[in-house]
């Protein structure tokens, strides 16, 4: 195994361990040694975060470990991105998402976790925050043309907002321009189907998996 291969292995393992400092060190060292930045992402960081996601899905690790992995991934990407630009290379686009908690609701724990994971998996994420006015979502879709719109609502009193927003997208002629995913403690698969959302997931990790399939499907 070459030094570069060994480093790739170590990078993906450090992402799995959520060892941010080691990821930083190894990524810098690899770039200095002339490693291909795209390969560092694909066979190092991304491979690590995929394994973390799988382990989380199997119930083997805690949510905090998943998020530490995501943070390590993010830190690594921040170092690699300028190098990719410098070499005029381009990372394969994963997708883009606008996410926010609907008007009347200020809960953001779940939404923040989802946003962090999307970011770690290479999505372009725009987080509109909490208590987001309807029009702000609509404007966001119009201007930024994201692949996905993520609507979060925790309370049974605010989940009807998700339906209203989907209807608003329809009346604004934007419904077929974006896939809508909904989330929140009171939301389930049935409800998602009922209000005409494209996707729903049980947890943050599943949300990323689901989003990837939505982006790939026509």
């Amino acid at each position, binding site marked *: 195994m070459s030094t570069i291969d060994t480093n790739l292995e170590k990078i993906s393992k450090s992402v799995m361990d959520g060892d*941010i400092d080691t990821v930083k060190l190894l990524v810098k060292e690899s770039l200095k040694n002339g490693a291909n930045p795209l390969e560092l992402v694909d066979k190092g960081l991304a491979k690590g975060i995929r394994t973390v996601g799988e382990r989380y899905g199997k119930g083997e690790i805690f949510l*905090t470990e998943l*998020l*530490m992995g995501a943070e390590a991934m993010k830190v690594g990407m921040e170092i690699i991105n300028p190098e990719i630009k410098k070499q005029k290379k381009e990372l394969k686009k994963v997708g883009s998402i606008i996410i926010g908690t609907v008007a009347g609701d200020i809960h*953001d*724990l779940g939404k*923040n*976790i989802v946003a962090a994971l999307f970011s770690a998996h290479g999505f372009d994420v725009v987080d509109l925050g909490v208590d987001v006015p309807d029009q702000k979502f609509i404007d966001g879709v119009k201007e930024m043309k994201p692949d996905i719109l993520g609507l979060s609502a925790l309370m049974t009193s605010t989940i009807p907002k998700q339906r209203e927003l989907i209807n608003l997208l329809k009346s604004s002629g934007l419904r077929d321009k974006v896939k809508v995913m909904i989330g929140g403690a009171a939301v*389930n698969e049935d409800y998602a189907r009922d209000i005409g959302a494209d996707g729903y997931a049980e947890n943050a990790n599943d949300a990323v998996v689901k989003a990837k399939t939505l982006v790939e499907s026509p």
Partner: protein
Amino acid sequence: MKPVLEFLSTDEVYEIHQASLEILERVGMKFENVEAQQILRNAGIDVDSKGVARFHSDIVEEYVKKAPRSVVLRGRDPKKDVFLRNGRVTFAAGTGMYVIEGNKARKSTYQDCCDWARLTDAMKNLDFSCEIHSTDMPSELTDRYNFKAMAMNTTKPFVGSALSKAGILDEIEMAAAIVGGKEELRKRPIWWAGYAAISPLTWSENACTVFKETAPYNIPAFVEGESVIGGTSAVTVASTLAQTNAEALSGIVFNQIIKKGRPCILNLGFTHPMDMKTCLALHGNVVAGIVAAAGAQLARFYGLPSAAWMATDSKIPDAQCGYEKALTGLIPALGRTSLIFGMGQAEFTFAVDFAKLIIDDEIVTQIRRTLDGVEVTDETLCLEAIERVGIGGNFLSPKARETFKFIPKETTELTIGDRNTREKWLEAGGKDIGKRAEEKAKEILAMHEPEPLDPDIVKKLDAIIENAKRNLGRKA
């Protein structure tokens, strides 16, 4: 602080102690075994022609002091030894003559005892095991078969039973064969023998024999006052405590006379209230838990370990089973009872249920967490993390990373309880906890192989059993 639940004030502990001494002097304790009567007389205790020993308080106090403050229950694997420390709570399996499968109970077999031992060996919350009965073997020999099944299938300490003098002598031989001789057995007594007084106020022929024969090897003696409250002791908890404590204390005095310094466990926690309508002893009843916790308080007064039984009277892993197990487990645990038996126990103490063992393992996870209480230190206050996360942030983020190491200690993880959303639960079959636990038990039994016993030792055990069989034939 680690929580401790106390049902008696310091004065009340002393008052019950004195009441027990008064019972032992005024009413006395009957020893059915003639040799035991002579042993007591030789120690200066007044024993009348009916075998009733009347103890003066100074003798009781003198001998109880001789019982060591440190008791170790040893396993075939020394790493599994259980040190009974003050305030430490440990958990053991239940026992029975039946195995419950679904809504039915059938008589337990030698093979069941092997499987039971194997499953208890695998459960992480179970510190020591307890036999179930090989009812398919000749009734006079079940104690030997149980012993073999346990010794072969768990490396944890276990509790045996002895049905006769020949039985206990054979078990000593078997234990010696496992540890490498009788001299070694004195150093590492790998199993222990217990007996309950027959309430009110009698030590049976068999109990005296078991205590006597196991004494030379320093095998820990499990000395039990085990009345049925309202039937074989008065209906009040206070009187039950005074009487069962008197019974157990006299047993400890006897054990210390025959072998000074022998490890003893003072167990008042197998005492159960009688249902005043059906006359059945209620094992899952909260009063049993109260007696056990108060009994543990008395045992601590003497510096001795204590015991209890987490039990249910329910026949299936239903809601009654869950609440009774949790209460009769948690109350004695908070009372800092040293040994809590009954994991997997069902239907009074008649039966075991493999599925319940899996559920009880999770109940014990919750109990252990409760016992850990609240740890308050600079580190656990996490003030720096609070500042770093700031207003409106969250503590799952890497900003709070130094707090993550506390996750396993501060939180509890469910292994069998359902914590899914309805969709996920339905997707997995929509099963109740009993069904899931039954499947899990089968899964563990298919996988778990304890460290095997040396085949030469197994041959020795078989030879001892064969010999017992021949002797049985001769007697007949």
